[in-house]
């Protein structure tokens, strides 16, 4: 509880420092609303022109895209800055200060690098979710709402953990990690669409070693009444399990890398 309160306090001060420049903050929000709004409009237009994308109608594709972007925004607000700063932290020794604070080093780092700019993604994806939910023929029972909430959280946990796991080697290499770059490429270019459009080996990869499929594609099928994929139908329920496993792997990676951390700073 104490850690949580401290975390909120640090985030509050970060918010205050950003609000010092309201023009820049609002300009940034407007730019991202425009960019992502147009991106989603184009995606809708593409699928609308053809009727379906691998059996997914435009509303379903937008629903999937919005869920992916929302879970990315929630995850990246905690982890984007820290992942980008890993090499610099190791070079100038600023990581040292995280180890001498009266709280968990990783929580301290996440709090001090918390990125409030992602509020714009959250706002635009909420609008896209409302649009797609209003047009989908899904019966919204209490259980379905609960599953939607759970899949947003698990999607965010999966994306956040994968970002950290892929970027963390930069603490050792002291330059941007190739695995980190690989994660951004895959996440940015391949995951926004139903993964059933890819060849089977790629689908298998996204269902096993790189569990991108569990961010949105598999769990969203519970709501849409679909059963696609290359593995048994139970896969669509496995997102929470994958999220918990990734948390453990992230903790192991963090402990492994920081246990032998040597400061290079002055």
């Amino acid at each position: 509880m104490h850690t949580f309160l401290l975390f909120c306090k640090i985030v509050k001060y970060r918010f205050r420092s950003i609000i010092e420049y309201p023009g820049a903050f609002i300009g940034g929000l407007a730019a991202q609303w425009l960019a992502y709004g147009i991106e989603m409009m184009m995606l809708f237009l593409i699928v609308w022109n053809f009727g379906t994308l691998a059996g997914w109608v435009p509303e379903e594709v937008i629903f999937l895209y919005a869920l992916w972007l929302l879970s990315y925004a929630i995850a990246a607000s905690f982890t984007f800055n820290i992942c980008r700063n890993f090499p610099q932290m190791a070079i100038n020794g600023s990581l040292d200060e995280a180890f001498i604070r009266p709280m968990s080093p990783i929580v301290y780092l996440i709090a001090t690098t918390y990125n409030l700019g992602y509020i714009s993604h959250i706002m635009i994806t909420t609008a896209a979710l409302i649009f797609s939910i209003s047009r989908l023929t899904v019966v919204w029972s209490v259980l379905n709402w609960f599953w939607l909430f759970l899949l947003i959280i698990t999607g965010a946990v999966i994306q956040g953990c994968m970002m950290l796991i892929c970027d963390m080697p930069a603490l050792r290499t002291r330059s941007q990690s190739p695995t980190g770059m690989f994660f951004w490429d895959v996440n940015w270019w391949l995951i926004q669409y139903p993964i059933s459009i890819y060849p089977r080996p790629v689908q298998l990869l996204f269902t096993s070693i790189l569990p991108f499929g569990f961010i949105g594609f598999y769990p969203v099928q519970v709501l849409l009444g679909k059963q696609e994929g290359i593995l048994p139908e139970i896969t669509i329920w496995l997102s929470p399990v994958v999220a918990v496993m990734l948390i453990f792997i992230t903790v192991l990676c963090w402990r492994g890398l920081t246990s032998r951390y040597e400061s290079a700073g002055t």
Partner: protein
Amino acid sequence: MVYSIKLYTQIIAKEAQRFFTYRVNILSGCLTALFMLGARYALWAALFAAGNAGQSSLAETMTYFVICDIIMIWLASSYGNTIGEDIRSGDIAQKLIKPCSYHLMLVSSFHATSMTSTLTRALPMFIIAVIFIGLLPPASVVTLFVFLLSVILGAVIYSLIDLIISYTAFWLTDYWCLSWFKRALFVLFGGLALPLWFYPGWLYEVCKYLPFQYTIYTPLAVYLGRIPSGQVVFSIALQLLWICILFLLERIIWMYAKHKMTVQGG
């Protein structure tokens, strides 16, 4: 003139040298280009599999996107970030008093990046696309030459629009959002995400009266024979007209921007 050309080539050589120092970034750029290509192919193959393509074909669409991506890699300038950073750091004061045009330095620097990016990103993408996807050739040698002329005119229009948007940095305290605005405009009106022949009629009409489609869409429509041969000259004339209008606008805004300049750093 000779001095300017010598300076231009020297800046290009130095920028190229700097670019090739970061080998991981080169590898990452190459991978990004290939992921982009793979994602596009999977997406459009799945869409065309639905069989509602109308007058278009998968080969035509993929040719459009591969050439579009190659042109965008070549045009990958971001004057907003450079001008904004120069203003923020105060470097612009030094650069404006140098015995060399500030714009020449900007253009030279970006051309160096463009050339190296074209080699490391566009070339692998082009080779893979030719081997595995199959691109459509231009209808004739004349079409090829008209296409190249149209690409050059489109590049000038793109640079002028980029500069005009970038000058906003003189009035802002933050500038990172400018590239988002620019991309959003080109995605919506320029045909970056979807060829304009897929647009609904009203949106296509709007695009006709704006300069954005003349950067990417017009050259590609010439290449693919989407513009009837009788109207090609008219399209080139429209590109020239937009260059004149935008050049005039750019000069006027630059005149005001120079007087507005407030150097914060230094």
